[in-house]
């Protein structure tokens, strides 16, 4: 299977990437290519120009910044998985990265690509949503920080504008406990439903594959805030959420899974 024809250029720096992406309205960045190339092979994406940011090694890092950890957009899943710093300070993220696809996918895919793609079925975006991470983007009008809660907008839609480059992900420290439950049937598969739960002061719960974008469980979070038991809070997990039906699961089954997985995750937190 072949993508339709496109032009291809390599970005030599962040500024160069911004200049090149602005040169063509139908241009797209390519990082690891592990979401974009499959879409292009199915011709679900047909960019006229690819701006390859894969060579921007300066954007591949994991740093301790005191109250938060800073992860460069080009950091590959395998590096997040094996980072000693993350394993010590934010083991949840290493664990979630280890569940993405298979080793070959993790060798190529980047955290920035996963976040910018904004797929509701992806693991890392939901985990970052529960962790209250924020995304640093640079574009023609400068640099801005976007909280995860405002970042994921809808089906493959994020707060990034087409001429903006995601450069860094900031994740607050202070997580006292966490749990991540990925439900799938076969090795290597995407989550049918996933739940990320994080205690950092209050308790935050986010879902994988319960909607067109990663979602916070406001029902569950509200319940916990008003002193509900784990069972009561889990029962409200899918409040206001209408998950899709597909070959893997009906909407009703997803709601059931969300409740069960949320209960298990909350039990692990306490």
């Amino acid at each position, binding site marked *: 299977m072949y993508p339709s024809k496109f032009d291809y250029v390599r970005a030599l720096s962040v500024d160069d990437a911004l200049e090149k992406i602005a040169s063509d309205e139908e241009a797209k960045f390519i990082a690891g*290519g*592990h979401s974009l*190339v499959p879409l292009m092979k199915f011709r679900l994406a047909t960019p006229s120009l690819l701006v*390859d940011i*894969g060579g921007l090694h300066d954007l591949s890092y994991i740093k301790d910044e005191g109250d938060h950890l800073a992860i460069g957009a080009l950091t590959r899943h395998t590096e997040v998985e094996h980072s000693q710093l993350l394993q010590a300070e934010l083991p949840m993220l290493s664990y979630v990265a280890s569940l993405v696809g298979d*080793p*070959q996918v993790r*060798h*190529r895919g980047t955290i920035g690509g996963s976040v910018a793609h904004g797929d509701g079925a992806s693991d890392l975006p939901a985990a970052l949503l529960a962790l209250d991470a924020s995304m640093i983007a640079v574009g023609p009008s400068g640099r801005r920080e976007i909280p995860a809660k405002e970042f994921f907008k809808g089906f493959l839609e994020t707060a990034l504008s087409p001429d903006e480059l995601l450069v860094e992900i900031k994740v607050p420290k202070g997580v006292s406990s966490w749990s991540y439950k990925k439900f799938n049937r076969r090795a*290597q598969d995407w989550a049918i439903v996933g739940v990320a739960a994080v205690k950092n002061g209050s308790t935050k719960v986010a879902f994988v594959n319960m909607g067109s974008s990663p979602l916070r469980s406001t029902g569950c979070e509200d319940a916990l805030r008003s002193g509900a038991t784990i069972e009561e809070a889990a029962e409200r997990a899918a409040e206001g959420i209408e998950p899709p039906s597909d070959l893997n699961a009906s909407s009703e089954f997803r709601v059931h899974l969300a409740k069960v997985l949320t209960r298990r995750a909350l039990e692990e937190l306490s």
Partner: protein
Amino acid sequence: MKVSMKINGVEYERDVEPRRLLVHYIREDVGLTGTNVGCDTSSCGACTVLMDGKSVKSCTVLAVQAEGAEITTIEGLAEPDGTLHPLQRAFQECHGLQCGYCTPGMVMASLSLIKENPGLDERKVREGLEGNLCRCTGYHNIVKAVLQAADEMGVKA
């Protein structure tokens, strides 16, 4: 556009379209047909090669993305005199293949796995090969072969 990379230690340069997939660059432009295409949708692992030492599915990498990279394919493992690599020999001795279609990808994925994970055990091998499908063997002998090779290569627990 011109794309050059080192494959099994030899420098190649070919003029290809940006949409050329790495697997076709290797198979058709360079002529090394040991790497197979199975699913063409990054599921089966038959097209696995090493890119700068790490396993990747070459049906999901554009050749242009591999500019300047060092690629290793199944043809690059045996010694020039034909002596098999320990992994190849282990697959043969443990009967880790039947039709052989998945084998080049299995061997390349296993090589990456062994190099990255000192102290492999059966569970880690099974999980580490989750991106490679085999329709013949039932996997048991593949796992045996990988553990035997890891042992021989001196990196097993």
